[in-house]
């Protein structure tokens, strides 16, 4: 009887503790390539959600697809390191079936009791709600992952200033300083980084290869997926390329609408990046400001079009349905707020102490690797360091918000209705063409060769890939504590970089 009573008391206490514990969730986020914007917004939505940086402190492993087979051992290792009770959640993106030439896996294939949130129900609010209501489990640990043996070249003794023993620290492949997985192996002499070794390819999907095997609108979907954080840029590149092959030119009003959609996407990316960057600097006030601006933009931009630009961007569609009806100038106010934040940061001497003079990228090196985008423009204006890239992005975000305003303003567009849309022409006539679109991280280039029936050859020029190669020289000689801020300042999207 005593044993039964004790058992009941223990069960009651455990149940009570479990109920209380479920009030807050600590999660470790893993961005397989498409989750940066969701992960930037999540902590602001759920005040009871806390992101952590160590798997030992996490209750939930939150993974955003796509997940490559190469990344899976790291995820397995992370899950094994988490204390029980625990749970794994995956937010779905286009899965393995969409990328037949990619080696993608599902989390369910190697982790127990995975909760899946499908792509159509993956709004930040819904994900936050699911994380908070998810029951944790005392499950069995999955078997140890088979890790590939790895060797990295270390600098010779004569290349070091002081001959001491080097320590190799692995940053990633799951880390918050890039949008998507990247492994950076840092050889450190104390707090000084002596050399860095980059391991990319954890988010490879072979988008270009898949495009040659797909048809019609499927290809447009794949083009959108090149950079999951910038689907408009990828899709617009493909649509523009098709229109060039079809010898069709959009009207100026449509061109302005497309530019507005593109500018909006650039701003969204810059602000989501700012949230991530502020979190890395552990600057709470900047994080709060960035989150507030990002949420304001998300709220305002819902009013612009009846469908999202990714849905209405199609070749030879003459008009675009819009809902923007000359409301009070919320975008102008937003642009003014971004500009004010930029000015405040430029005057912030403590921020400068932390970000000025580190991660210097000379403009000739950027030209040599074919870099483009904010990183190049910052260096061209003499702002070659991390602080310069931060201020340049904010400058460009403010300008782009005004571009969105300008693109949406033309009066005739306000009267357009969905019924006036033309029929999209998805066929690719024989020929060869090249286009370049100004995406959030630089120029996204697309080169197409069509034989009339299918795409014969597809090649992308990816802005993050160009910057990736600069990382080893950028990190060598820097302080370990600056490594994350330097890498983050480049705003690398690994899904786009890996292709």
């Amino acid at each position: 009887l005593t044993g039964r009573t004790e058992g009941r008391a223990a069960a009651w206490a455990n149940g009570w503790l479990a109920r209380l514990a479920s009030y807050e969730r600590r999660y470790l986020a893993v961005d397989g390539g498409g989750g940066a914007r969701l992960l930037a917004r999540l902590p602001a939505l759920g005040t009871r959600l806390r992101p952590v940086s160590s798997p030992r402190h996490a209750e939930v492993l939150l993974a955003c697809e796509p997940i490559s087979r190469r990344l899976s051992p790291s995820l397995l290792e992370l899950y094994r390191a988490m204390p029980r009770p625990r749970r794994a959640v995956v937010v779905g993106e286009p899965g393995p079936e969409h990328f037949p030439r990619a080696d993608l896996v599902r989390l369910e294939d190697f982790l127990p009791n995975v909760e899946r949130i499908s792509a159509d129900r993956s709004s930040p609010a819904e994900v936050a709600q699911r994380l908070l209501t998810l029951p944790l489990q005392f499950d069995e640990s999955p078997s140890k992952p088979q890790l590939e043996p790895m060797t990295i070249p270390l600098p010779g003794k004569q290349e070091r200033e002081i001959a001491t023993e080097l320590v190799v620290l692995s940053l990633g492949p799951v880390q918050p300083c890039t949008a998507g997985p990247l492994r950076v192996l840092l050889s450190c002499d104390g707090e000084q980084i002596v050399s860095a070794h980059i391991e990319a390819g954890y988010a490879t999907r072979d988008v270009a290869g898949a495009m040659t095997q797909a048809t019609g609108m499927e290809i447009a979907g794949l083009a959108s997926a090149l950079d999951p954080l910038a689907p408009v840029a990828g899709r617009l590149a493909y649509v523009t390329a098709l229109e060039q092959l079809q010898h069709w030119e959009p009207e100026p009003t449509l061109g302005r609408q497309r530019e507005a959609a593109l500018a909006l996407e650039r701003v969204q990316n810059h602000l989501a990046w700012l949230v991530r960057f502020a979190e890395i600097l552990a600057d709470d006030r900047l994080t709060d400001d960035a989150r507030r601006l990002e949420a304001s933009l998300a709220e305002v931009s819902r009013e612009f079009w009846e469908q999202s630009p990714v849905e209405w961007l199609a070749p030879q569609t003459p008009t675009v349905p819009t809902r923007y009806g000359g409301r009070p100038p919320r975008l102008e106010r937003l642009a003014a707020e971004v500009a004010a934040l930029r000015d405040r940061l430029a005057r912030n001497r403590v921020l400068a102490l932390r970000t000025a003079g580190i991660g210097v990228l000379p403009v000739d090196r950027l030209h040599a690797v074919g870099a483009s985008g904010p990183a190049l423009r910052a260096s061209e204006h003499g702002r070659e360091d991390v602080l310069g890239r931060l201020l340049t992005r904010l400058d460009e975000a403010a300008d782009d918000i005004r571009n969105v305003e300008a693109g949406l303003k033309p009066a005739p567009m306000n009267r357009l209705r969905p019924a006036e849309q033309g029929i999209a022409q998805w066929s690719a006539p024989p020929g060869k063409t090249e286009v370049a679109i100004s995406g959030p991280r630089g120029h996204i280039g697309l080169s197409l060769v069509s034989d009339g029936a299918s795409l014969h050859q597809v090649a992308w020029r990816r802005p993050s890939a160009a910057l990736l190669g600069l990382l080893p020289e950028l990190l060598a000689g820097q302080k370990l504590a600056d490594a994350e801020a330097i890498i983050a300042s480049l705003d690398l999207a690994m899904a786009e970089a890996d292709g």
Partner: protein
Amino acid sequence: MSALGTALFVGLGLLLGAYSIAVLERLTVLGLRQFSVAVIAPLAQAAALLRQENLVPRGADRLLFRSAPLAAVAAVALAALVVPLGPGLRGFDPSIGLFYFIVVLGPFVIAMMNAGWSQNAKEGLFGTFRAAAYLLSYEVPLGFAAIGPVMAAESLSTVRIVEAQASLWYGAWQPLGLVIYVVAALFMAYRRPFDIPQAGGELEGGVLAEYTGPRLLLFNLALNALFLLLSAMGVVLFFGGWHGPLLPGPVWFLIKTLALAALLLWAGRFLPRLRHDQMLSLAWKVLLPASLVNVALVGILVMVLPGGGW
């Protein structure tokens, strides 16, 4: 009060104090509108950690790994004994109370270093080195900042220091010492913007990266209690301790302590995390010379003005 009573009183006080700091910490992030979340969330986190597995990493030094959180709690509990909450309301009042406080808190950093060292992980090792590098950097300015009130009160007794501020708080005429103490206290408590040994992203949590469950809870408790104690000692040294009108002394002491802690937590939110070399530069190139200037200034004032200061 008997030894057992004192132990229970200090233990309960630290527990409630650590919880108050956790609530304040969340309030500074969430704001007053989320008051209920700020109140419940620390309890929820404690419940979650109590339910969790108490893992020990493979290859860890088990003795050091297991004992580090206990050593941290012991250090803050022993230091708490000399903090006077009100007239006669203290663990004990040695004549060297302030010296005892600083010396007894010293092993806290040893506990942090043991925690990082024993993990058998490079991240923890780097965290250990960082914690060790800061040890002297904050101890020296903290000690010199505390000398000002000692010179004015002509005593190392924490009770005597509070009693000497019955007419005017030392913070009013030793503002430099107050600022140095506050910055050094943030250093010592591993709080923003000086929390790089335990929070550097590149180290995944640094010295606490491998701790889980009840041991992590103990460490969190010790860190919050440490911050509370440093705030309380700040009140003893610069804000007149329990002195205040109308309300009972202990109530004034608690109000002042939590207000100072809230102010420091709030101020820390406006600064990005500093790098280790910047922290060391701040300590040795700014705080130390400034603290020596403060000692000289206080010395002159105490010598020149009748009655020893004000």
